[in-house]
């Protein structure tokens, strides 16, 4: 199985956990807002800090990327693992330095000093000790390190925890400023890093300075979408093209639900569907002023539609009880379900076909709820995996680690990529029918996310052994690339005072929204919650955002 998929699997799960929060601007809270910059970027400052973008051309994908402007494109697809593994790095990047890196790991931590780490150290030319920490506890481990000012030389800080880790403040004190090494044409020294799209670098810029090294990035950064069981719907003569409006989708509820047979049309869909009502992730500019999504009439329309869906009996009762959805989708007990795009890969195909050999996942095309407007959905952050170097490192050390980062960012299928993801041929993997297949040692020692969580090349779609998944997913991206737009403050890091971060979280409103979309509360209850949120902290939040972000930096685009 392609290791690229593991990352996607993880990112999908993480996105599911973080929910829409992952799609909001990359927030970071600080306790005493007055003493600190907001972390935002002005358009000109950002331009100066950002590295040049030089896409890699070393390997030609089977399904090329379809682009829509410089920052938006579908991910390229590979049906086969490339048979030739061209080298993109000459010589050994390191000079023998000794470093420690900490990354989260959702999986079994490989034993330290094993043959894969040894082989990697030899290939990288440094003595790098990777300390993998349990991903589930990561949010509690990192603050103890930052509080004691004892960060390792290289650390991964997932962007959905920017607020928890207070990255906004760390960038000023404990994390190294990489602008002098990477901005503009300086990045040409590291061609693999230069192939990482600008949007991902942008998510690593704080206060007009570049700090972060992006992990898996994409120009099709949509956190999730609305999936359907293509095998079952096609058998009933329904295709994605039949769904062009919210009404069309609602009608499927009646057509597909057969409660007596234990089949309901819908699982929960709100999280990745509300944007089809022309609702932004959080903010929008109207007449030069910030407007929160809660204030938009179409937000209430979206809520109303979802409330109807829940109360009409088209949603599976277990979905209303908020239990996990995957098995229902596999067993065909629900036919339409919202979910992170990370789920769309080989492992899902295997699980689905185990339940039903015809299993085929597909996603509806992005549509406008009214069926008339231009279909549109907002993009999320271009990456959620960001690593940082320690501010205590000497310039020569930083340069050495950037050379190492360049090695780790080598494109899909290259010699370096194969080494980072699969290890040494014959020891950690063997080629079987053109697919790198892990040996026992490989299964034990090679966790693709150990190095991948430091730096990774841009995402590609590849599912060896399940061409249908690669073809469906790339086709869906290509068909919808025109519908993506950059929301206000896209990829901008914003450090907020504690009270503002709490206001932004709007827990009472979000709770009531959840209750409403599961049919427990009416839209008017949400309106009441919004009204009380606005008067208690929402208006203050908007003022703060206007004064400290919009007026200072603009929308970041």
């Amino acid at each position, binding site marked *: 199985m392609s290791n690229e998929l593991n990352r996607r699997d993880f990112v999908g799960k993480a996105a599911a956990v973080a929910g829409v929060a992952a799609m909001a601007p990359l927030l970071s*809270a*600080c*306790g*005493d807002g007055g003493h600190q910059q907001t972390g935002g970027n002005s358009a000109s400052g950002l331009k100066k800090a950002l590295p040049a973008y030089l896409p890699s051309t070393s390997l030609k994908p089977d399904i090329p990327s379809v682009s829509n402007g410089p920052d938006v494109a579908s991910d390229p697809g590979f049906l086969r693992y490339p048979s030739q593994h061209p080298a993109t790095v000459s010589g050994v990047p390191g000079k023998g330095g000794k470093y420690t890196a900490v990354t989260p790991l959702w999986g079994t931590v490989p034993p330290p000093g094993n043959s894969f780490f040894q082989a990697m150290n030899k290939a990288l030319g440094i003595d790098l000790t990777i300390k993998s920490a349990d991903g589930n506890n990561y949010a509690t481990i990192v*603050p103890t390190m*930052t*509080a004691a000012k004892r960060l390792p030389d290289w650390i991964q800080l997932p962007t959905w925890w920017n*607020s*928890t*880790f*207070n990255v906004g*403040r*760390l960038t000023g004190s404990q994390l190294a400023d990489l602008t002098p090494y990477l901005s503009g044409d300086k990045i040409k020294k590291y061609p693999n890093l230069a192939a990482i799209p600008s949007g991902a670098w942008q998510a690593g810029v704080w206060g007009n300075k570049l700090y972060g090294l992006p992990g898996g990035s994409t120009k099709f950064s949509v956190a999730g979408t609305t999936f359907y069981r293509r095998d079952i719907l096609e058998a009933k003569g329904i295709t994605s093209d039949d769904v062009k409006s919210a009404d069309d989708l609602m009608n499927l509820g009646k057509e597909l639900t057969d*409660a*007596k047979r*234990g089949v*309901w049309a819908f699982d929960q869909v709100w999280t990745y569907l509300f944007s089809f009502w022309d609702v932004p992730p959080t903010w929008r500019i109207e007449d030069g002023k910030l407007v929160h999504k809660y204030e938009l009439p179409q937000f209430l329309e979206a809520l109303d539609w979802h409330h109807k869906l829940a109360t009409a009996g088209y949603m*599976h*009762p*277990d979905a*209303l*009880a*908020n*239990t996990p959805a995957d098995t229902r989708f596999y067993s065909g*007990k629900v036919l339409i379900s919202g979910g992170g795009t990370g789920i769309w890969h080989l492992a899902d195909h295997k699980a689905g076909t185990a339940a039903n050999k015809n299993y085929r996942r597909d996603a509806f095309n992005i549509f406008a709820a009214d069926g008339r407007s231009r279909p549109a959905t907002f993009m999320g952050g271009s990456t959620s995996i960001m690593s940082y170097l320690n501010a205590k490192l000497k310039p020569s050390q930083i340069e050495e680690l950037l050379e190492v980062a360049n090695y780790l960012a080598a494109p899909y299928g290259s010699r370096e990529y194969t080494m980072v993801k699969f290890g040494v041929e014959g020891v950690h993997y063997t080629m079987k029918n053109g697919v790198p297949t892990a040996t026992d040692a490989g299964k034990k020692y090679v966790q693709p996310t150990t190095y991948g969580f430091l730096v990774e090349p841009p995402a590609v779609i590849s599912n060896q052994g399940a061409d249908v998944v690669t073809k469906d997913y790339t086709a869906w991206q290509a068909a919808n690339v025109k519908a993506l737009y950059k929301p206000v403050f896209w990829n901008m890091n914003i450090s907020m005072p*504690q009270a503002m*971060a*709490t206001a932004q*979280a709007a*827990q*009472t409103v979000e*709770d*009531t929204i*959840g*209750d409403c979309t*599961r049919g*427990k*509360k009416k839209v008017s209850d949400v309106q009441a919650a919004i009204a009380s949120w606005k008067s208690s902290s929402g208006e203050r939040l908007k003022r703060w955002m206007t004064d400290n972000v919009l007026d200072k930096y603009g929308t970041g685009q």
Partner: protein
Amino acid sequence: MSTTEVRQAQRAERLNWRIRLRRDRTLLIMTVPTVVLLLVFNYAPLFGLVTAFQYYDPLIGVWHSEWAGLDQFKRLLDDPVFWEAMRNTLYLSFVQLILFFPIPIALALLLNTVVSERIRNFFQSIVYLPHFFSWVLTITIFQQMLGGAGVLNHFLRAHDIGTWDIMTNPHTFALLVTSQAVWKEAGWGIIVFLAALSAINSEMYEAAAVDGAGRWRRMWHITLPGLRGVVVLMLVLRLGNALSVGFEQFLIQRAPVGHEAADVLDTFSFYYGISTNDYGYGAAAGLFKSVISLLLIWGANKLAHAFGEDGLYRK
């Protein structure tokens, strides 16, 4: 008493204390590990309560976080969501007291009447077992049986009887969580009562039987008075814990029934404190709860003493 007499008495007492120390030395040494454990894991963390009076920021730590005074508490008392959680907690606690508390006692009495040891052990194992299930598992079982797509509703639907919304109905949520608690914990709760029952001198039953007392008379005049001390102790503890009705059970079922029905003080601290990085606020809610709990346990203990029972300790 003259001054010398008082002095003598005091000296005797002191001596007495020393003698007692020497006599109980072994026992005291045996308690040391527990005391250390308590100090390290229960008392030392009390220091963290200081965050309830701060705008706490984990990055800069307790020493440098900005002082908030009583602001967090003011916010708390003005927060309708907090009072909702408080109301839910008290209501759930009350329902559980009425519906849950008598069940382990009844079960214990019932088990006590079973003569065959094999049957008793068998039955005991069965009622203990659910205690070792996690809440996730317990609620999943309930969902599979009683949920909208569960066994019961599937049967009702198949026979066109109309469905019965049990798992996602906020109005009957208190009954649902209580029945879950009964299913899971009632068996475990009988242990302490069984121990008390075994402490009753069986000669008393024999003597009463000889005097012609029937089964009910013996239960009324011997068994129940024998249990009274333990029942009162458990009641005092239950009242002291009135504000802790559980956490996972509500965390898992919060979305299905909605936060207004399912938010209790502990989930309030979690959602409105920890998960929005508002640690000081969460700590304030937690401290508020602890203080009220302390008052409750103190009051209940007083009440127990007033009725001539031991309560938490003998007066």
